[in-house]
Each structure stands twice: as C-alpha cells, then as structure tokens.
C-alpha cells in the first residue's frame, strides 16, 4: 500500500482509468497545461496528451455539452467544473439534459459522463466558492452522486463512476485535498451505492459525508471518552443510496444523527431522516437529529465560517446532548 494525498488520488484514479480505456477523455478549465487549479490533474497532460486532456474556454455549458455529446456517441468523458458552486451556470445541461436523456429517449441514448467538481467549505473563499451542493444534484432524477472522504475511495469510486454508464457527479472536497491515506497498489475499483461503517458502535449511528466523516470520527472518539459508543457511517454515495447499511445500523443503535455540510433545507440528511423515521419508526428510541450548516450563505471570515460548518465540537455536543 502506498500513501497518497486525496489530491493526488484524483489524478491517480483518473490515470488508472485512462490507461485502461483508450477512449476516455477529459476536459475542463486549466486542467491540462496547469494541472488543475487544485493540482488534482497534474501529470495527465504529459501522460495522455492534449487530445485526451483538454483545456477549455470559461464556458461551463459548452464543457458539459461537449461531454454529453461525446458520451452519447461513444466516448466516455470526465468533465471538470472547477468549483461546485459553478454547477449553477451549467445546471440546465446537468439537470435537464444529461439526467433526462436516457429516460426521454426510452434508452436510445446513454450518457457516460463523470462531472468532477471541488465542493465544500473551510477555505475562507466566501459564499460563492464554498458551498456544499450535493443536494443540488441528489434531487435530480437521472444523476448519480458520489462524495468520497478518503484517498482510497477517491480512486475506487472514481473508477466506479467512470465505468458507470450513467452521468455521475463526483464531489471532491476542497478541505480534504491535503489529507493523506493508504491506497491499494493494484488496480482499485469500488462500487457506487455502498456506504461504509468507519467505526462500529452500539449507542447511536452517525451518518456523515465527505469532510464531515473525519469530523464525525473525531467526535465519536470524544464521545467514547464520555461512555457513548457511536457507530460512524461514511455515506459515500448519495445516489444510489445505501439505505440498508443505514437502516441496519439504526436497527442496532436505535438512534440516528446525520451530519451535513450543506445548508439545512432539503439536504441529503432530510432524505435519510425521512426514510429512517418512516421505515425504522419502531426501531427508533428517539428522534433522528440533523446536524447541518445553518440555512445561511457561507461567510468568508475564518471565525465565522468555522462557526457555520458542523465542527467536531458541535457534533459531539449535539449527540451527547440528545442521548444524555
């Protein structure tokens, strides 16, 4: 096992797949010559050449359109939208075109595109470059949605997303880029639609995504010191959603906490809470509690941003308060 940063795992995962499938191409702003503004695509231009790794104009609609048109006609594509906030400038292509093409054409058309994008807060970039927008895509029928929290998952889920014949939105978390972790030396392909129990526990379940996973784990360690044994689930994939792992855990623990970085209203936690509160109604010993960023745009100042996004403190305190 080698150790790799989450950042480098992005390029590693893409390279693994570009070596395997000579058709696979990628495009985006500053991804080729510059290796990406987050340095997540360094080396790919050199290895795969300018025909397969393309810099684009600042034209997100043209980027996703080119990806979709190529994918419809036999070329799988990885498209980068630099910051996930910018999905808003090409939302029509994503939500109305890619997502609906297979359905509208009764399966004549399929769209094997991975839309990679840097998501989430913690960089003090302010309201237009810090959003967690998983729910923007989860709510659109026809899109699959993945958000890894570890370098190994970046590679494994990237490979799974690329091999998937449907459009997949792949959220890379900006505040995880520097995090290091073990990755398999051999080819690594994971499965979409599978959550992972990162920490087994018996007293309650904490379901978290992306940056919230390490925070939930740290909170769980603190809670353990207080005698609360929390099970932490890394949701990983919002669509498909691994409801059996979550429901199974809740059947055991009787309590669920969701930890979302997206602002409160209509977040993925609401969906999970509504499923659990319905299907595990008789298992629950207390209400499902959602820990979220408050329903506000994000502030820029360090002091404020840290208050807005769920912290280890807030997670631990909320769980302890609810169970206590």
């Amino acid at each position, binding site marked *: 096992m080698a150790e790799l940063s989450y950042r480098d795992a992005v390029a590693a995962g893409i390279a693994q797949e570009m070596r395997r499938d000579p*058709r696979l*191409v990628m495009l985006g702003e500053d991804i080729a010559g510059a290796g990406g503004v987050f340095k997540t695509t360094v080396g790919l231009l050199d290895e795969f050449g300018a*025909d397969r790794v393309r810099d*684009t*104009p600042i*034209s*997100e*609609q*043209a980027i*996703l*359109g*080119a*990806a*979709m*048109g*190529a*994918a*419809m*006609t*036999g*070329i799988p*594509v990885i498209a980068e939208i630099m910051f996930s906030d910018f999905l808003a400038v090409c939302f*029509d*292509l994503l939500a*109305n*075109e890619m997502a609906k*093409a*297979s*359905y*509208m*054409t*009764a*399966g*004549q*058309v*399929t769209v*094997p595109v991975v839309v990679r994008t840097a998501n989430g807060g913690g960089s003090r970039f302010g309201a237009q470059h810090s959003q967690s927008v998983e729910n923007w895509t989860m709510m659109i*029928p*026809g899109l699959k949605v993945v958000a890894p929290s570890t370098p190994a998952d970046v590679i494994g889920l990237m490979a799974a997303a690329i091999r998937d*014949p*449907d459009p997949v939105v792949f959220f890379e978390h900006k505040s995880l880029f520097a995090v290091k972790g073990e990755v398999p030396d051999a080819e690594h392909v994971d499965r979409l*639609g599978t959550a992972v129990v990162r920490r087994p526990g018996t007293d309650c379940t904490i379901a978290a995504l992306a940056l919230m996973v390490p925070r939930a784990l740290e909170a769980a360690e603190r809670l353990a010191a207080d005698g609360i044994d929390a099970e932490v689930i890394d949701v990983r994939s919002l*669509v*498909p*959603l*691994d*409801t*059996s792992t979550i429901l199974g855990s809740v059947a055991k623990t009787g309590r669920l906490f969701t930890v979302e970085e997206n602002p409160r209203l209509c977040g993925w936690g609401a969906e999970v809470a509504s*499923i659990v509160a319905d299907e595990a109604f008789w298992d629950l010993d207390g209400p499902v509690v959602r820990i979220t960023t408050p329903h506000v745009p994000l502030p820029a100042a360090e002091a404020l941003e840290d208050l807005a996004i769920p912290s280890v403190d807030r997670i631990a305190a909320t769980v302890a308060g609810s169970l206590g």
Partner: protein
Amino acid sequence: MSTEAPPGRDEGLFDYAARPPRLPDPIDDRLDEAEIPREVRLGLYRTQQVLRQFEKRAYDLFMQNLVKGTSHLSLGMEAVAAGFAGAMRPDDYTFATYRGHAHTLARGAAMEAVMAELLGKENGLLGGKGGSMHLTSVEHGMMGSYAIIGAHLCIANGAAWSAQMRGTDQVAVCFFGDGTTNIGAFHEALNMAAVWELPVVFVCENNLYMEYTPIDLTTSVPHPAADRAAAYGLERILIDGNDADAVYLTASRVIQRARSGGGPSLVEAVTYRHGGHSRADPGKYRPADEVEAWLERDPIPAYHRRMLRVGVDEGELVEISRDVAQAVDEATEAAKAGVPPHPDAVYADVWADGGWEWRN
C-alpha cells in the same frame, strides 16, 4: 429579405403593430441552373412532401384532440430540413429543437413511429416517454430534439468532437431558431466549436419570430446568426431558407468543409412558419400582408415549379405526392391502432441498465 436596421432600436421598443412587415425576397431562378442531380432534386421534393403532408395530418389530429401536450410544426419551413438532410451522410448527426418533426422525418425515421409518439402510444418512437418535443432516432443519426433553448448547440459540439476523436469524418448538424441566438449557450457553443475546429454545422432557421415576439425587437443586429459569425472567426452565410436547392448547395459546401477538417460553419436560413408557434397559437400577432407574402413564397409549390422548369414531368411529381399521401394515411392508422404505453414504462430507462432504483 431586406436587411434594414431592426425597427426595435430607434422607433419605440415594443409596438408590434407599428412594425413594417418583413417581406421575403423573390426566389432566385438562377438556381434552376445549379448542378444538382435529378435524383437529388426528386429526393428533396419527396422529403418536402413528406414533411408537409405529415405535419398537416398531425395538425388535424391535434384539432381532433388526439394529440395531447404541445407540438411545434415546421409547415412552411420544410426546405431547410429537406435541403440539409439531402446533403448529409447516413452516419452524420442531427440535433434539433422541440420543432423537430421535420428533421426527424427528413433523416428517415418512420412516419408511424413519429405519429404514434405524438399520440402517446407504445409504438411511438420513444414509447410515449418523450413526446413531440423530444423526437430521437439514434439509428437514423437523429440524436435528439431538445426543448430548452440553447443546450443542444453545446451537445452537438460533443458529437462532433467525438467524431474527431474516433477519427471518423462524421459531421454534426445542429438546427435552432432565430430567438436561440440570444441565449448564452449559443455563444459558448460557437466559440468552442471554432477554437477546436469541430466538424459541426450550426443552422439558424430564422423564421423571424420567437414564440410570439418578432426577433428584431430583441436582437441587436438585423441578422441574428449571420451578423455574428465574425465574432467566432467564421464566414457570414445568409441563405434563402425557402428554396431547397439553395439550402442543399450551402449544406453540401459547409458539410464538406467540416468533413474535410475545415471546421465549423454558422448558416442563417431565412424562412417563415405558416402557422403559429405551437399548437395553441393562431399566430395573429403577424401583419396580414407579411403572412400573405410568405405564403406566396411557400417553398413547396415553388420547388414544384422549379422541377417543371428543369424538365421533370408533372406526372412524376404527382405520383410522389400521392405515394406520400398514402404513406401518411397508413402511418396514421398504424399510430392510432397503437396501445397506450405499459404502466411499467414510468419506471424504465432512468438508468442505462433500464432501471430506476436510487436505493438498495
């Protein structure tokens, strides 16, 4: 068509009634002499007949309330679809808007399947899932009808890029309206196509109106597409969209350019719709003299006259027309005989594996 400054700019912004009518140019008889093979011309004639007769029937079916939803006819605009389809190779790609019946048929999709789709039947081209605005027939290179303005210009680029990467010499042809030239995606698509020298042809079917609003009132140049070609380093191409030969000649030239690596083109074909924007619209906002002048310039009788001038026998034309009429009748019956889609279709084809599950 005259190219004076749009009336919107200086003389009161929104007064439809005050607008002078925009009259068609006379047909260019010199095109009689164009070197277009007889069989090609007969094909163009037949295609125009198919589009016209099919859509007239579709219109009748709306009137009988057999077609639900909306639909957008190309009556009066057939020469554009016919001329381009005639110049395309079977493996070339078409991308169209919600106004896509004509382009779908022109590429060879079966009338029955198209008609049944309008009727929401299981034997429809899309099994009733897509409807009038989303006609698609991948086997005929008809890569879809897109109902939200702009996106498909970007998607057409992708198909052209794919052809480039796969090393084929396929060309993508993308049709859209005059109103579409003012949306952002138009600009992004044209720029990317030019920079990447993609084998794509953008065809603006300028029928002088958006839905109900005259295009001059919302556009900063008299010719919404042609006057913008230079902004992408492209040639200015403005043609008579009511003359199938004019369209065919230009189509052949720009498709050949794209096929041989010469990059994209932007064509503005000026035309007019005989009816309203969509089924519900009688089109009353158009000056009567304008409508009349354009009806006079109906592409189909004009092409009929040209065929006679270039020596085709009237009988042959009548026979084509009768053939088509019979085919439309048969298609109509077959479409009507279709059953509604099976309820399971609601849940089919969200994913490429045919399913819809979002959870385990």
